[in-house]
């Protein structure tokens, strides 16, 4: 079993074997990341491919300090953003007025109630812009200001899209929750 450090060194020399090991080791985790940014699995796999190409050819940029997985994840997220820009349908050039988010309905969730498959599905169904902002803010933990820079949108747009995304997700989860509990009641 090769260590990550050995693999990185070999990959920097474009060793085909090491690249394959790297792929086998991390493709599942990174596909998990890609799936959050894509609207279906095929798109996620496209992003995954592009990410690995970037990883293989820029592995010398990984400084060695900090977690390697963190670096891989960052490259993948950036690739997803590039992908989003490439497929951008609309340009967000108008400032959207500050959106007052109305916290209605369920605010807290039971962690084990939803499977990750279900959460993925909810994300996949979101409008692309919402999905990007929600992922970057909620899961990746970026600040709205950073997200605005990455996506080339206004900070307020990022904020308002995040609250709208939350509202949509909450709505979907609630519907799903009702469906699921109605089944468990039957038992």
């Amino acid at each position, binding site marked *: 079993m090769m260590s990550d450090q050995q693999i990185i060194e070999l990959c920097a020399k474009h060793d085909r074997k090491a690249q394959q090991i790297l792929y086998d080791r991390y493709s599942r985790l990174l596909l998990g990341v890609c799936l959050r940014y894509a609207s279906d699995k095929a798109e996620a796999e496209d992003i995954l491919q592009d990410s690995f190409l970037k990883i293989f050819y820029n592995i010398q940029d990984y400084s060695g300090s900090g977690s390697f997985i963190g670096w891989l994840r960052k490259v993948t997220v950036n690739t997803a953003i590039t992908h989003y820009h490439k497929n951008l349908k609309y340009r967000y050039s108008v400032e959207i007025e500050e959106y007052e988010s109305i916290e209605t309905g369920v605010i807290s969730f039971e962690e*084990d109630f939803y499977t990750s498959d279900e*959460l993925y599905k909810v994300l996949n169904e*979101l409008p692309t812009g919402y999905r990007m902002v929600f992922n970057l*803010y909620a899961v990746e933990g970026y600040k709205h200001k950073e997200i605005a820079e990455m996506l080339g949108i206004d900070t307020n747009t990022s904020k308002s899209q995040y609250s709208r995304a939350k509202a949509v997700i909450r709505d979907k989860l609630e519907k799903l929750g009702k469906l699921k509990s109605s089944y468990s009641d039957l038992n």
Partner: protein
Amino acid sequence: MKTKKQNINLRQLFRNKLENAEAIPDVSVKSKLMRRVARKEFLRFNPSRLNIYYIAGILVTGIATTVLLFSTSKDYETLLPESSTAILNKTDTTKFAEVPVKQIVRKEPEKSFVIHNESIKSKTSSQQRDTAGPEVRKVNNLQNANPIYHPVINYAISGKGVFSKSVDDKKKLQSGFNTEPNLIELFESSGCAPLKLRFYNKSTPYDSCRWTFGDGGFSNERDPEWIFDVEGEYKIALQVFGRDGRNSISTTTVNVYPRPQAHFEITPEKAVIPNDEIHFLNYSTNAVQFRWDFGDGSTSEFFDPSHTYAKYSNYNVSLVVFSDRGCSDTLKVVNAFSGSEYFIDFPNAFIPNTQGPSGGYYSSKSDEAAQVFHPSYTGVTEYHLKIFSKLGILIFESSDINLGWDGYLKGQLCESGVYIWKVRGKFINGEPFIKMGDVTMLKN
């Protein structure tokens, strides 16, 4: 029973569940990726490792250089006149004297050619033949000088073929224009980009003229038509070269206003009609007024309107936006709520687990062995499945799409053979579906 019952907010929920979630990529992804890597490697010409490519590279470059060496000497000779005539043909169809050009112009042919060729627009072919040689030579001499020369040369030549005059002479000539305010007739002097205008030259008597449009373009036509693509204020100048040697100049201004851009997004993306209230997110630029048409006969003038449709149908939603100058733009989304992406399909066979009933719940991962009879679908909201035996007895019924048939009836494994299924329901956009078919239950 659940061991952990912890309440968390939405953000934590997604972070906890998905931050380190894994998914198995398709096998083809890896092979495709490695093919792309191989392609990239091939293009990288790494001499230390990939010897085959290295040799191939040497071979290719070797052949290429020999081919190039043979062809360049010829190409150099033939390319020049070809490109020069091509440019010339745009303005004048008469054949241009190629020979002197070929001999003189060696180093920077394009530059001198463009200049030359723009300048002879208004001249006759006989003049061209006479002038081509010396003129090109002259331009060549000027190439290292200030680029301001170029337009001046142009200008002098287009006047009366005075290519041989010195710069001083040209300046004199230029200052000899009388400014006259009313030679240009224009029906409109402003409009929305892209703006197409026809300019009329009212001067008489007149021999030739030259229009400059302020955006770098010019024309020697008498009444040219011009399109301004970009918004702005343009200074239009008309120089008229009179038959009597009197030259005059007239100017006017054209205002081109920016055109707004209509853009909007419909949310939710996969709306349920008529249940959902549809929000239209407006991303239009440069616009102050909005006119929405929701396709069902209702309209709105709000910035971000919401609308609820009365029944399911394919609607065309359009947005017309207007700028403060009255310029407009339209975006129309045809079949805005089309449900073509929604489907439900059933397999025609499955192999139940003989170990005992599984309950029928399935996911794409857990049911790789096709042990549960269940549909593949997207966008299904209402669902009712019934399965009958060949004798018409109801074996299984489910209103939950996540619940398929595991092949058991009251804990007993059913006989293998053909069963009939019937499903009805609705897609989330409100479109109903009814399907029926048969499925063969196999046994290992």
